[in-house]
Each structure stands twice: as C-alpha cells, then as structure tokens.
C-alpha cells in the first residue's frame, strides 16, 4: 500500500511541477493593465505601425542574438596537487582535481581524488573518478548527481552519488556528497574550505574533510558512524590567479568505531604530515 501511494506521488510530480511552472511564467499581456486606455493616436495619418521584428521572436531578431548570456565554459583546476611527508618516513603524492563544462545552470563535472604511496610495493593507495551532472539549485548552491568509480582500494567499487556544492554563509566553500555503493552501502563525504587573506596574494586555507558511513563495511575498513577526519592548513601564494604554490600541514585521524577497530589490529590511526603543492587552473 505504502509503495502504491509513493508511486502515485512520483507519477504526479512532473504534472505538479509543470503546473507550478505555468504559474511562474508571466504572460506578456500583463505588461499593460486591463483598464489601460488605448495609445493616443498622434501619429500622422496614413503611417501605420512600422514593420519590425517580424522575422523572429525578440530573442533572435534577424537571426542574431544581441548578447550571449548562455555561454559554454570549460575549466579544470587542481584544488590540491601535493607531495606529503608523513610520520615514520611515509611519502605520499595526493591529487584532488576537478573540471567542468557547462553554462550558468547546467554543468558536467569530472572529479578525481587519489593518493600514491611513494614506495615500491603498492604504489596507488586510493584513486577515484566521479562524473556528475550539476544543476544550479539556488543563489549559491548546486545539486550534483552521478557516479563514482573507485579504482583503488581493490576490489573496485561503483557508487551512485548525490550531493551539493556551493558557498555557505560566511564564505565557506562546501562540498557534501552521499554515495550508495553497488553493494548497497551508504556513505558520505563532507569537505569545507575557507580562505583567510593575509595579503592580496598570500592566503591561509584551513580545510576540513569528514567521512561517514551508515553501516559496517569491514572489507574497506569502515564502520558505522564518522569514520575519519582530516584537518589541514595551507599557506598559499598567488603568483597569479591561476598559479598558486603552497606549503602546509595536514592531520588525518580515523575516529569512532572505525578508529577503535583499526587501533585494535594495531594500525596507525593518526598521522601528521607536511605538504608542498600547487593550485593550478586553466
């Protein structure tokens, strides 16, 4: 029964939204009030209304657009692209890059994040690729959904992704996404960044990352609750807007049930690292 009701609601949603759209689109005739008097006929006799704009609607008169407010842009940037020196001599290279193509409302995002352990045995620790459709939702927020493919750790996994990305009040850049794995496991990742301007070109960027899991997934070392937390601070110098090298610190900790369980088996759940990297965009 419940299912049936839900189905009914979903079936009618498009109809409802269509009706709402009908309401919000103002008919052109509303520009003049109904009781507005006819235009005074002061034009000379015999001179009718001049012909204009008859070869198209006002947005494409004469086969031209006067302005181009739906331009397609494409860009690519490295948020983090860095070498990390962690405790106990562990060295890691980390990338966190994204690119998009689109216009004001609709964008196609490609994001990738990963870590390479700079040692011989298992070079790639983590690597994922996300393909997301992004739709402008409100003034400062985009809703994004699509797929994520984890290439590492193995075995590979595919996720459905649904999230929001945007600018929170007080200038926090936020990216929060929920992931549903092919095995039905639900997890989430939240990232937030802030920019403190020391000078016009020298900025400090505090950064917070958090992982969450809705159930235990021991094979991927995740247990229910908040799984891990990364705090970082980077000191970035903008040589130009598109080239900004940085140095910084990053601290990562497995917490909650995850931390507890990993500690039990003797894993190092708490690492501090120094980073050197560059933010680039094209």
């Amino acid at each position, binding site marked *: 029964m419940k299912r049936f009701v839900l189905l009914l609601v979903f079936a009618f949603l498009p109809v409802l939204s269509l009706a709402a759209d009908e309401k*919000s689109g103002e008919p052109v005739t509303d520009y003049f009030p109904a009781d507005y008097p006819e235009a005074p006929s002061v034009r000379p006799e015999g001179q009718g209304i001049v012909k204009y704009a008859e070869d198209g609607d006002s947005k494409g008169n004469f086969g031209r657009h006067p302005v181009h*407010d739906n331009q397609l842009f494409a860009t690519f940037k490295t948020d983090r692209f860095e070498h990390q020196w962690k405790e106990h001599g562990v060295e890691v290279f980390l990338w966190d890059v994204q690119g998009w193509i689109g216009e004001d409302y609709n964008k196609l995002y490609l994001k990738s994040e990963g870590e390479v352990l700079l040692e011989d045995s298992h070079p790639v620790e983590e690597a994922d690729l996300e393909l997301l459709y992004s739709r402008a939702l*409100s003034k400062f927020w985009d809703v994004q959904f699509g797929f994520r493919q984890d290439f590492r750790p193995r075995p590979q996994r595919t996720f459905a992704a649904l999230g929001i990305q945007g600018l929170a009040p007080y200038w926090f850049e936020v990216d929060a996404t929920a992931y549903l794995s092919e095995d039905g496991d639900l997890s989430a990742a939240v990232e937030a960044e802030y920019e403190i301007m020391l000078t016009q070109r020298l900025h400090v960027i505090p950064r917070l990352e958090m992982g969450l899991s809705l159930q235990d997934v021991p094979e991927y070392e995740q247990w229910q609750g908040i799984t891990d937390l990364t705090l970082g601070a980077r000191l970035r110098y903008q040589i130009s807007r598109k080239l900004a090298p940085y140095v910084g610190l990053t601290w990562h900790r497995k917490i909650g049930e995850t931390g507890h369980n990993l500690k039990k088996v003797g894993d190092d759940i708490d690492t501090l690292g120094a980073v050197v990297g560059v933010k680039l965009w094209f």
Partner: protein
Amino acid sequence: MSQGNYVSRRRFIQGVGSAFFLAGLQAALPLPLWARANHWGLDGLPSARDRYDLTIGYSPIVIDGREGTATGINGTVPGPLVRLREGDEVTLNVTNALMDTEHSSIHWHGILVPFPMDGVPGVNFAGIPPGETYSYRYKLVQSGTYWYHSHSFLQEQSGTYGPLIIDPKDGEPWPYDRDYVVVLSDWSFEKPETLFRNLNLLGHYYNYQQRTLGDFIRDIRQDGFKETMDERLAWGKMRMSPVDLADVTGAAYTYLMNGNSPDMNWTALFAPGETVRLRFINASAMSNFDVRIPGLDMDVVMADGKAVRPVTVQEFRIGVAETYDVLVRPREDRPFTLFAESIDRSGYARGTLSPEPGLTAPVPLLRKRPVRGLQDIGMGMMVGEMNEGEMGGGHGGHGGHGEMGTKDDPRIPGPNGPEPFMPDRKTSVNVAMTIPNPRYRLDEPGLGLGHDGWKVLTYKDLTSEEPPEYADTPEREMTIHITANMERYMFSFDGMKYTEHPGPYLFRHNERLRLFLVNHTMMDHPIHLHGMWMQLENGADRLPYKHTILVKPGEVVSALITPIEKGDWAFHCHLLLHMEAGMFQVVRVV
C-alpha cells in the same frame, strides 16, 4: 602672457610641431588628429560634414611601447571624430573589415534615429557581415556631445568606439575659445573574451584590493570588536563583498585618455585667460571614472549632450557611456592635470591642460579604495537592529505584493513608489540579493566621493536648460529591477537574463511613462535606453535629459519617458560584460 606670444607659439606648433607629430609619431601611434597631443582644439579641424565612411578592422595599437591588436575604426583607437550638424540628413557608411567575425555594427549612442539606423544586431538590424557596408542615414534632431561604438560581441572593449559631436544649428549656448574632446576608455592586452571567461569562473578575478586580515585588525582597533564582527558577519552572511566596486580593474586595464596612457600624457593646449570646453566621454567598456582637474573649477554645462544650467564643481563621476561637457577658465600660465580615477582606485587616466607642449603638472595620488557601508546598499538594518529594518510597510495599494514598503521618502516620485520585487523559484538562482527598501540617493555624489572638501557633482544638481517638451505627469508607471548574482556572474533585469525573459518590455508610442529603476546589486550600473530620452526625476523644475543613468546600489531612480519612435530598442547595463552576461532587454514601442 601676451596674445602675440601665443600666436607665435601656435604658429610654431602648427609649422614644425605638427609636421613632426604627423611624420614621426603618427607612424608609431595610430591616433586620429583630434586625439593627438598638442593640437589646438577642434577649431583647427575640419568642420561638420554630412557623410562619413568608417571601416572597422584590425589595427595595431601601441600602449606604453607594447603593441597589441585592436578592432579600430579607420585604423585608429579611438576612431575618427564624427562631426555632424543639427538638422542635416547624414549618411554614415560603415564597413566591416573584421573578416573572421560574424558581424560588426555601429550604434550611435544617444542619437534619436529610426530603429533600423540604431545599429544593434539582433534587435533592430542584422549586423554588418564581413566585407559588407551598411549605410546609416538619418536626420539629426539634436546637438551636443555623443559617441558611437560597436554593439557586436565584445568589439567595443578592443577599440571600436569614437566621439560623435553635433554642432547646433543656432550656435553654441555659451562662448568659449577652445574645444577639446576627452575620450576616457580602458584598454586590456588580454582578449575581451578572456576577461569575460575569467570573471565567469571567478567573480573577483581582477580585484586585488580585497579586505585582508590586516584590515580586519585595523577595523577592530578603530571601531571595536563587536561592531567589526557584526559588519563582517552581515556581509559574510550575504556572501557579498563591500569592496566589489569594479569587475575589471587596473590589474588588467591601462586607462586611456584620447587613446593615450597616463605616461603618454595627452596634452591639450590653452592660453591663460581662455575659456576651454572639455567634452568628456566615457567610452570605457567596464570603468566608471571620477574626474577632476586640481586647481581648476569646472562648470558642467552639458550632460549626455543636453544643455544643463551651469553647475560649478571640482569633481564629477562619469559612468560608462555618459558624457559631460565642462567649461574651465585657467588664468594662470601653468599646466593642469586632467585626472580621471577609476571608481575602485585601481588606476587612472591622465592628461595635461598646458600653456605649452611638454609641460606636466603634479599627478595626484590615487585615493584609498572605499568600502561600501551596509547602509549604502539599503541594508543598514542588517547590523544589529534587525527589527527596525522591517518597518516602513503599509502603504497599501500594491494589492497582493506586500508588506515591505518602498515609499518612505517623499522625494521618491509617484503615489506608491516602485513595485516591490519578489523573487520566485524561477529567479532564485539569478538574484543574490533583494533590497526591501530602496533609497533615494540622487543627492549623493557616489561611494568614495564628497569627503575631500570640494564640491562633487550629483544628479540632483542637473537642471535642463531646454523648455519642457512633454507633460510632467505620467500616464503609466513601470518598475524594472536591476538584479545580479556576482558569484555566478549572472546579470539580469527582474531576475531574468535576456534569454529568460518571456518577451520584450512594452512601451506605448507617445505615452508619458514613469520608469522606476531599482538596483538590487552591489555595484553601480549605468543603464542605457536606446531611441528615446529618459528625463531623470531629480526634483528639478526642468528635468534633465539622460541617455544613460548610473544607478547606485540600493537606489531607486525614476525617469519620465516619451517613446517617440516605434520599433524594438535595446535597454541594457552599459558595463559591457554585464550586458553580455544577460543584463539586457528589448523595449518594444507599439
């Protein structure tokens, strides 16, 4: 200095100097005669004609020794001086020699013409395809200082503009000895498309005057911790920056005066005791300027080509596309600096008014970049006293719309003031901010002005010199809201980009219309209406005529309009990139 001296110097310039400049500098500097330094004003130039041939093509431009490619007219930036006579039937043949573009065009800014002569591709003609010539023909029914520019893509940014002056048929209204055109503009070696892309990807791309941690600490020392935090949090909550004054700044621009950089120092000559007419034209793509001549009073005698009752000022703000004619009377035998600071103080255009070539006067320092107060955008109540800001409602009469009053100030014309703006789901992405109580600000000189101890022109100071042509009681009222979302670089009217509007704004032929413009953004927008005058309702007994009105943040202005020509007309923000990003609409006069 004696008159004889001046004659002999003048003869020297004309004989030796101009030969040198023509032969030597002209080769390196593609500047038209009127824009070159050290000439003696327009009286030495050819008088008005009724036919011009203009060719828009790629031409070299040299700024401070660096060469770039411009889309000049007849090979120069700015283009040739188009000088016409009131009452004449004129023919202006414009050829598009930009062979790789879709089209080019020339719009005669502020000139009343039949709509097919207005020159806006996609609104009232198809544009000029490469290799073709379009003949603009119209009869001039006005006189004064105007300009012309391309209305195709971003060609205006790369140099497709020039001055247009129309000699009155009955002689000038006041006497003067010298006559100069002063075209202010902004040049970037970056491609205009790059400027647009960068701003779309990062709204503050060119702003290197943002507020830093140091500013925060200084403000705490000055105003106390609580006040500073409240102010920062109010802006932060809106996700707006109070120092977002210009999108493209001196970081990308070299500001030009008659095509000369500040170092190139365009020089106008005068003899002490003369009255000099300076026709300031802001032909910039994106830069509003504050103009002054330290040591000289300026009598503003024309605004947007129309005579106004003279006002003596020491400084005026000139929005993009506006023109002001001023008379100056230098008595001393010394040079004076013509100084035009960009509104965000990131650079300046500069020239010299000098009794002889080669002299310079001290160049003032740039003033400090101002910070917008919350009250400047009509959001004063955001700090602390939230509840007080909610008041002012209950004017009634707006059936359905609202509790928020807009007519608290008797200086705002009309029985009810502007219609309030209620963004809906459709406009939610476009509109980052709405101003519940827009303010009357015509008596304010603008942000960063008026605190220097000298008189700055305000819109309230303008009174037309012409006898009233139309009734001052409107038959109809209409409100257009200026809206934007800077973070997404989306600019719009009534919360809709150009392509999102359901249809054009409708004006009735020969009606008397009151148009309210309400600025719901953080920036000053020069709003331009093609094909008809806007008479600014500034309380003057004779309302001044404007083709472009610079609307301040949080401000409501109103203008009385009589649409005298049927057709489709462009209505847009004259900041080129705002227009291109959607702050554009068609006005259909039916």
